[in-house]
């Protein structure tokens, strides 16, 4: 049996390259917020179909977050909840989902002056490792190094990480962490954890 | 020989010679006798100096000949006026809008290029009539129906380009809407195909309307932007069965819920034939029975011959009167009725009719009459007695209305249609009657007591009045003046006409004036760009080429 020494790889750490909006992360917009204060999260969203996402939700709940389960489709969450809420006042959300739900929520949030301020792509590799591609503020990335010691508990650690996400990223950076992680049978190959938060941008399209 | 405006006699003679070379000598008509055949048989200007008449007529036999004619016309700046079968009677017939134009008569182009039974469509040339297409389908034994307008001798292309209507399911009885794919000769003589037809090897020219990029087919309807030389039409597969049933409501105000429920049923496709409104009390017959009644020598307005009722109707004018309501109740006569038609599977028809009855039952005192049930195709005997256009059979029976009959011993020589679009509500019917009755009174027109709209279009009503055209010039002049006033009265109330004869096209286009005639200016910009010499149908639907506009102002 091969020795499973924990493997840590920090690639392009703290590379301060502007990340396009397409990548799901807008660069810093204002630094008015107190960097240390975490983004208040209105809802923490998980996908009921995936074990890692359920574990993420369990930890989130333990930390006092209001959790919301989906099965891939965010229509109900947005149409019957977030839309009205955001029209009143933009407020942050976080989640561990597939790419599709984030794609939708991100664009819907743009219209209320919100942006993805932290994003991590979690990909199971065929070689038994998981690759975590992180982008967010330097502080978040520093904290995210914590994932390097993670295994199957990566998703509950992620929950804890997201609740500590600062309200506004001072500077956008990227980092990749690779750790040996066994794939849960009902997890998809790729998941993404993310935080969407108000950043005080001008582009708000909601009519109040 | 009459010469087109602004064209020298020698140029015209030269052009005629070239037209003859292009289409054959026998297909260029210049003698007064032959050219007279292109007069509008129903012209309200008949016999007056300003009657709209052609200078000559040219009848090409194919698209290449059309191209040649158009190129010659460009060379000599000769106004040409295409007609398909020239049977647009009541809306201008075969006469041009600009007197002295050369009529481009497409009647010889009468090829039925394709009829596809499985995908239910046809591709035809402009000279093909509804009779032609019907006969072709019958001869081949195809299980297809053509949606025909009342007179069946017209052209599917001509009728749909003038945006006429028929009687079958909504998507078929809107004739322009039922087209799919066009071939057009442009003012510069080039041939263009629209929709999927622009794809050289197209397999779906008659199956997908809009192709890629701007969908421009509508520009060639009620317009003078091109000569349509081929057009596809979606046909209705012969249904399994037909069923009709009539809803009768007792009171004046019941018309409002009657129409609302009808709209629901039609817009959800519960009833899919043309709904047919009537008034048993006022003696207003169903449209589908109109012609048949004439056949049988009955008056179309066969209200009960009762002096009390006649007096009550006269008193009410176009208005609501409680006495009429009382009379209807007392005698048990329905105030309004609506015949619904159903095309489809036998059981589905029955279920749809049952559901319709359930919906109408919300109107207190409503009664229902079961109508005809036919398993299709019709037997020969059934064919004789039905209103043929409702079964896709072309006919000329509608001309019985203007024909000499026991009830109409001194017939007119024609008619012109005044046809505003009004909202599809009972309230609008009442308002339109009040307004037009008042206007008729002021204009001294002998209008009938109450008019009910037609339902050709699925979402709007069309209110059609026939103005007679007679032999007497003074009467015609007065009718033309009254017609013009009605256009204005209608426009003041937000009702616009859907189609009209050349005599009134400027006046009506003038009412479509939003933002200082932005739409007309748009048309003019397009016209000048694609027909810089202004040769095609000058003045049609109010669109004049630049040189005429400039000369006018």
């Amino acid at each position, binding site marked *: 049996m091969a020795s499973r020494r924990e493997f840590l790889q920090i690639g392009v750490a703290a590379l301060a390259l502007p990340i396009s909006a397409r990548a799901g992360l807008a660069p810093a917009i204002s630094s008015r917020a107190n960097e240390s204060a975490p983004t208040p999260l209105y809802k923490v969203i998980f996908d009921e179909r995936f074990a890692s996402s359920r574990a993420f939700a369990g930890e989130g709940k333990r930390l006092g977050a209001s959790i919301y389960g989906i099965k891939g489709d965010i229509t109900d969450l947005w149409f019957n909840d977030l839309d009205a809420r955001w029209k009143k006042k933009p407020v942050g959300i976080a989640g561990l989902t597939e790419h599709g739900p984030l794609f939708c929520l991100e664009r819907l949030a743009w219209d209320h002056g919100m942006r993805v301020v932290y994003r991590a792509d979690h990909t199971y590799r065929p070689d038994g490792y998981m690759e975590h591609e992180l982008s967010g503020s330097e502080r978040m990335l520093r904290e995210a190094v914590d994932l390097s010691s993670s295994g199957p508990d990566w998703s509950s650690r992620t929950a804890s990480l997201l609740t500590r996400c600062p309200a506004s990223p001072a500077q956008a950076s990227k980092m990749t962490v690779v750790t040996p992680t066994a794939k849960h049978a009902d997890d998809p190959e790729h998941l993404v954890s993310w935080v969407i938060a108000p950043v005080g941008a001008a582009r708000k399209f909601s009519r109040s | 020989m009459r010469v087109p405006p602004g064209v020298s006699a020698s140029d015209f003679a030269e052009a005629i010679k070239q037209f003859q070379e292009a289409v054959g000598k026998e*297909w260029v*008509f210049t003698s*007064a*006798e*032959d050219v*007279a*055949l*292109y*007069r509008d*048989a*129903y012209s309200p200007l*008949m*016999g007056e100096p300003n*009657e709209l008449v052609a200078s000559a*007529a040219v*009848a090409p036999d194919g698209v290449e000949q059309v191209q040649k004619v158009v190129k010659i016309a460009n060379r000599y700046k000769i106004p040409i006026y295409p007609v398909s*079968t*020239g*049977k647009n*009677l009541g809306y201008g*017939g*075969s006469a041009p809008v600009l007197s002295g134009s050369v009529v481009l*008569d497409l*009647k*010889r182009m009468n090829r039925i290029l394709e009829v596809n039974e499985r995908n239910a469509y046809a591709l035809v040339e402009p*000279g093909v009539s509804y*009779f032609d297409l019907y006969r072709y389908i019958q001869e081949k034994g195809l299980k297809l129906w053509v949606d025909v307008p009342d007179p*069946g*001798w017209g052209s599917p292309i001509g009728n749909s380009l003038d945006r006429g209507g028929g009687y079958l399911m909504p998507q078929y009885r809107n004739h322009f809407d039922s087209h799919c794919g066009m071939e057009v000769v442009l003012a510069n003589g080039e041939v263009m195909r629209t929709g999927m037809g622009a794809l050289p090897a197209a397999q779906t020219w008659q199956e997908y309307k809009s192709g890629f990029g701007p969908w421009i087919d509508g520009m060639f309807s009620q317009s003078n932007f091109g000569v349509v030389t081929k057009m596809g039409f979606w046909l209705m597969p012969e249904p399994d069965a037909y069923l009709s049933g009539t809803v009768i409501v007792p009171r004046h105000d019941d018309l409002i819920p009657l129409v609302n429920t009808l709209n629901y049923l039609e817009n959800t496709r519960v009833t899919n034939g043309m709904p047919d409104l009537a008034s048993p009390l006022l003696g207003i017959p169903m449209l589908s029975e109109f*012609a*048949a009644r*004439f*056949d049988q020598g009955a008056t179309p307005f066969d209200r009960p011959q009762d002096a009390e009722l006649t007096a009550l109707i006269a008193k009410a004018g176009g208005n609501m009167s409680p006495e009429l309501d009382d009379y209807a109740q007392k005698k048990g006569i329905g105030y309004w009725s609506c015949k619904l038609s159903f095309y489809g599977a036998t059981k589905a028809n029955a279920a749809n009719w049952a559901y319709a009855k359930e919906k109408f039952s919300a109107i207190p005192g409503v009664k229902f009459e079961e109508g005809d049930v036919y398993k299709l195709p019709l037997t020969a005997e059934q064919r*004789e*007695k039905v209103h*043929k256009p409702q079964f896709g059979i*072309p*006919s*000329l*029976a*509608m*001309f*019985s209305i*203007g*024909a*000499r*009959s*026991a009830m*109409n*011993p001194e*017939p*007119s*020589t*024609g*008619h012109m249609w005044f046809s505003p679009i009004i909202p599809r509500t009972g309230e609008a019917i009442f308002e339109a009657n009040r307004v037009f009755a008042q206007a008729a009174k002021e204009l001294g027109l002998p209008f009938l007591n109450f008019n009910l709209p037609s339902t050709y279009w699925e979402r709007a009503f069309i209110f059609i009045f026939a103005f007679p055209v007679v032999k007497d010039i003074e009467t015609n002049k007065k009718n033309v003046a009254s017609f013009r006033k009605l256009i204005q009265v209608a426009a003041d109330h937000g009702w616009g006409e859907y189609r009209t004869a050349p005599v009134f096209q400027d006046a009506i286009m003038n009412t479509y004036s939003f933002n200082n005639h932005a739409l007309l200016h748009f048309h003019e910009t397009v016209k000048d760009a694609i027909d810089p010499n202004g040769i095609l149908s000058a003045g049609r639907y109010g669109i004049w080429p630049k040189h005429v506009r400039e000369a006018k102002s």
Partner: protein
Amino acid sequence: MKNARVGLLLALSLMITAPAFAAPDQDQIEKGHKVYDKWCFPCHGTGLGKPGTDSLAARGQKPAVLEERTDLTVPAIKTFVRHGVLFMPMFRKTEVSDADLDAIAAYLTRNNKP
């Protein structure tokens, strides 16, 4: 206009007075029958919904169906077709050519007594 009406009057009088000696050949009559079916029958045929027939009947014409007449003359037929009458419009040569019209006339006068 004036010409048309004059022509019409002329035709009407011809119809009454002119003798109709028609001796066309059978092919011509058969062709005429076909053209008649296409262009005339929808209005002048038998059965319901034939305004031409109804109109002539209302005028007291017997028989009202053109095909059954034995008193029509070639000039009268041609005049009606080329000038129309009342609500009946005239027919153009692209619809009913002169040759077609000759054939119609042959057909409708086939039973005339010399």
